[in-house]
C-alpha cells in the first residue's frame, strides 16, 4: 500500500510539472492582461473607482461613435461582398476535378498569406497615385477610373474585400459537400429546376454555414489593423486604429478609453465566433457531420480541423497580420 501511495504522489508531481509552465504563461500573458484591460475599461482617466464613463464616452462621443460606425460599415460591406463572391467561387470549385480543385484551393489559400503590410503595399503599386494601373488607365483614357482613390473608403473596402475572399472560399467550400448529388437528382425527378432546387433545398441547407462564415468575416474585418494602418496611417477613423492610437499614440493617450473600445471590439469578435460555431453545429446536424466535407479538404487544412467542434479558419489566413 505504501508503494501504491508513492506511485500516486510521483504521478501527481509529474502532472504538475507538465502543466505548471503552461498555467504560468497563460496567467501572465492572457489572464492578467485581459483582467487588467477589463479593470481599465471601468476606470476613469484620472484613476480611481469604478465608472461606466469610458463606455458612455465610447458610445456617445461623435468621434468614437463614428469610428465604430465606420468599422461596422466597412466590415459589413466587405464581408457581404466576400461571402457572395466566395460562395459562387466555392461552388464553381466543387465542379472541377479533384486535382484541379486542390490546385485552385492551394492558390487561393496561398494568397491569403498575402495580407497586412505587403498586401497594402501591393495595392499601392497597383492602384496608388502612381500605381501601374492608375497610370495605364490614364494613358488609355479610361475616365471611369479617374475618380478612383485608393486612399479613400472605396479603396480601403476594395483591399478588405481582397483578403475576405480566400477566407470565405475556405470556409464555405466544405459545406457544399454536405449537399449530396442525390438530393439534386431527387429534386429534378420530382420536377424541380436547378434554380428551384437551390432556392428550396440547397440554400436552406448551407444558409447556416453562410451566416456563420459571415460572422467570421465580419470579426476578421473589425479586427483588421495592419492593412488600414499601412494604407493611410492613423488618420483613418476606424475602431482598431482608434484603439491603437489611444493606447500607444504619440500625442495624447487615454488607455482607459482605449480599453473600453477594445472590450467592445473583443465582444463583437467573440460573438461572431460563437455564432459561427453554433451555425457549424447546425450544418453538421443537417448534413450528417460533414465528414464528406472534411475528406475533400487539402491535407494541411485537415490537420487543423478539429475532429469535432469548430475548425479554426485563421489557421490559414495569418489573420493576425491583416
Amino acid at each position: 500500500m505504501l508503494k501504491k501511495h508513492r506511485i500516486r504522489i510521483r504521478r501527481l508531481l509529474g502532472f504538475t510539472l507538465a502543466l505548471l509552465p503552461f498555467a504560468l504563461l497563460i496567467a501572465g500573458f492572457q489572464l492578467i492582461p485581459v483582467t487588467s484591460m477589463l479593470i481599465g475599461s471601468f476606470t476613469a482617466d484620472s484613476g480611481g473607482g469604478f465608472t461606466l464613463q469610458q463606455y458612455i464616452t465610447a458610445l456617445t462621443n461623435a468621434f468614437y461613435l463614428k469610428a465604430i460606425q465606420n468599422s461596422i460599415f466597412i466590415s459589413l460591406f466587405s464581408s457581404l461582398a466576400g461571402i457572395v463572391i466566395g460562395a459562387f467561387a466555392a461552388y464553381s470549385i466543387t465542379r472541377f476535378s479533384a486535382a484541379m480543385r486542390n490546385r485552385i484551393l492551394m492558390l487561393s489559400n496561398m494568397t491569403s498569406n498575402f495580407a497586412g503590410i505587403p498586401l497594402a503595399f501591393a495595392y499601392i503599386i497597383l492602384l496608388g497615385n502612381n500605381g501601374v494601373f492608375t497610370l495605364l488607365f490614364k494613358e488609355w483614357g479610361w475616365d471611369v477610373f479617374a475618380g478612383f482613390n485608393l486612399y479613400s473608403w472605396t479603396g480601403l473596402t476594395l483591399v478588405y474585400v481582397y483578403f475576405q475572399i480566400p477566407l470565405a472560399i475556405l470556409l464555405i467550400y466544405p459545406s457544399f459537400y454536405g449537399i449530396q448529388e442525390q438530393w439534386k437528382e431527387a429534386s429534378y425527378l420530382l420536377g424541380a429546376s436547378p434554380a428551384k432546387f437551390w432556392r428550396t433545398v440547397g440554400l436552406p441547407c448551407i444558409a447556416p454555414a453562410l451566416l456563420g462564415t459571415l460572422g467570421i468575416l465580419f470579426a476578421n474585418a473589425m479586427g483588421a489593423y495592419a492593412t488600414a494602418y499601412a494604407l493611410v496611417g492613423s488618420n483613418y477613423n476606424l475602431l482598431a486604429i482608434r484603439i491603437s492610437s489611444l493606447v500607444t499614440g504619440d500625442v495624447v493617450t487615454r488607455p482607459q478609453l482605449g480599453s473600453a473600445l477594445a472590450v467592445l471590439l473583443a465582444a463583437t469578435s467573440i460573438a461572431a465566433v460563437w455564432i459561427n460555431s453554433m451555425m457549424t453545429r447546425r450544418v453538421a446536424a443537417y448534413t450528417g457531420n460533414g465528414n464528406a466535407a472534411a475528406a475533400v479538404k487539402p491535407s494541411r487544412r485537415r490537420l487543423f480541423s478539429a475532429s469535432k467542434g469548430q475548425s479554426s479558419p485563421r489557421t490559414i489566413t495569418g489573420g493576425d497580420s491583416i
Partner: protein
Amino acid sequence: MSYLQLNGLNKQFNGTNVLNNVHLEVAKGEMITLLGPSGCGKSTLLRCISGLTELEQGSIILEDQEITALAPREREVGMVFQSYALFPNLTVSDNIGYGLKMKRMNKGDRTRKINELLELVDLSDKAQAYPHTLSGGQQQRVALARSLAMQPKLMLLDEPLSALDAKIRKSLRLQIRQLQRRMGMTMIFVTHDQEEALMISDRICVMHNGRIVQEGSPEEIYSAPRTEFVARFIGNYNVLGPQEAGRLEGLAAQPGISYALRPESITLLPVGEYAMTRPPSFSMPGYPSSSMSEYPSSGMPERESSEMLGHDSFGIGHDLAGMPERDSSSELGHDSAGMLRRESGSRPGRESVVRGYDLLGMSRHLPPAGDSAALYWPGKVSSVMMLGNIVRYGIDVGGIPMTVDTLAGHGPFRPGEQSAVTLRIDRSQCIPLEKDGA
C-alpha cells in the same frame, strides 16, 4: 491454491460501481471468457488485472505473488487490445521485439525470438512491413505475437476480435484457442459475443452490472442459464416473465417465476394431435441429456466440429447464436387476451392444468392421459422464416410471442402462416430462472 486469484475487487467511476465485489479463481492453463454486454465491467476487470486501471479494493494474486500494487510492467501480464495498439512507427519485427528490447535482451537472442514468433503467427514474410500495410487480422496476430514474446504468466485479451470482419474473426478465434492449448497459456478473454465465448472457453463468466452473475462451462451456461439476464443474453431463449408464465398452463403452477424456453426444445403439432411418446432426446457425451433438445442443430458440438474441419458451412448455428438479442426473447408486457389466464387462487398441480383447459373450453388441446412430462399449449403461427437448415416460427401463444425452431425438412408437419398449432414442450425444458441481481 489456484494460479490466479481475484479477491473482492471493487472499482468505482464517478460514483457508480463498475466492479462490484468480484471474486474469481483461475487455474493454470485455463481459458476463461468474461462475457457480457458493453458497460458490464468486463473490460474494466481486465484492465484492473493488468494494472492499467487502479483498484479501489481487493487483491490480485498471481502465482502466489500479490501483484495488486505493482505497476503494469512489473506484473508479467500480457495484453492484447481491441484496437491492436501496434506502434505505427515500427515494423512488424520491431513491434514484436519491443518488449524484449525494453528487457534489454541482446540483439541475437532477440532476432531469434522474433523469428520464432513470426513463424508461430505465420507472418514471416511480413517481418519488415509496417502495421498499416497489414490487414486487421494480420495486425492482431502481430499484437498477439508481441505479447507472447514476453512469455507472460497471464494473457489478457480485450475484445481482440471485435474490430475484424466475421470470417477472419472465426478463423482467428480458433487459432487463438489452439495456440492457448498448445502453449498451456492461461488466458482471460473478454468478449460480448456469446458464440465466441461458447466456442473457445474452458469456462465462461457472464458479467452484468459489475458482477459475475454466472460462471461455468460453456455447456452449463448454454443449457442452464441461472438468471433472466443470462437467459436473455445467451442464445435465442424464449424468456417468459412471471406475468407471462402465469398465463401458461403448467408454468403457472409456481407463480412469480420467470422461465427460459429454448426455441428448439418446443415441438409443433397439428391441433388435436399429440405425440404420445416423448421425442427421442439427443444425447451427447458431456451434455446432460435431459437438457438437450430433440435436435441438435443449434447446439454446440456440431457447429464446432464443422468449424474445426474448416468448412464454411452455411452457418445457421452461427446466425442463431450471433444474434443474441433477437425478438425471440423479447418480453411482451401486454396483458391482453387473457385466454389462458388462470382464475386466481387455483391450486397448483396437474389437476388444475386439466381444469384450466376445460374452463377455457379448449378440450381439443387436452393432452393425452399419461403424458405428464410434457406441456401442451395452443398457438397460432404468425410468421415463418427460413434460415437455411432451420425454419423459425413466430408463434402467438395466447398473446405471448414465442420462437420455435424446427429442422428444415424434418418431420411431416409444416404449418403455414395463420394456422393453428399445438406446442409441446417437456417440463424439464422449462428452465426456471432466478431474479437478476440475486
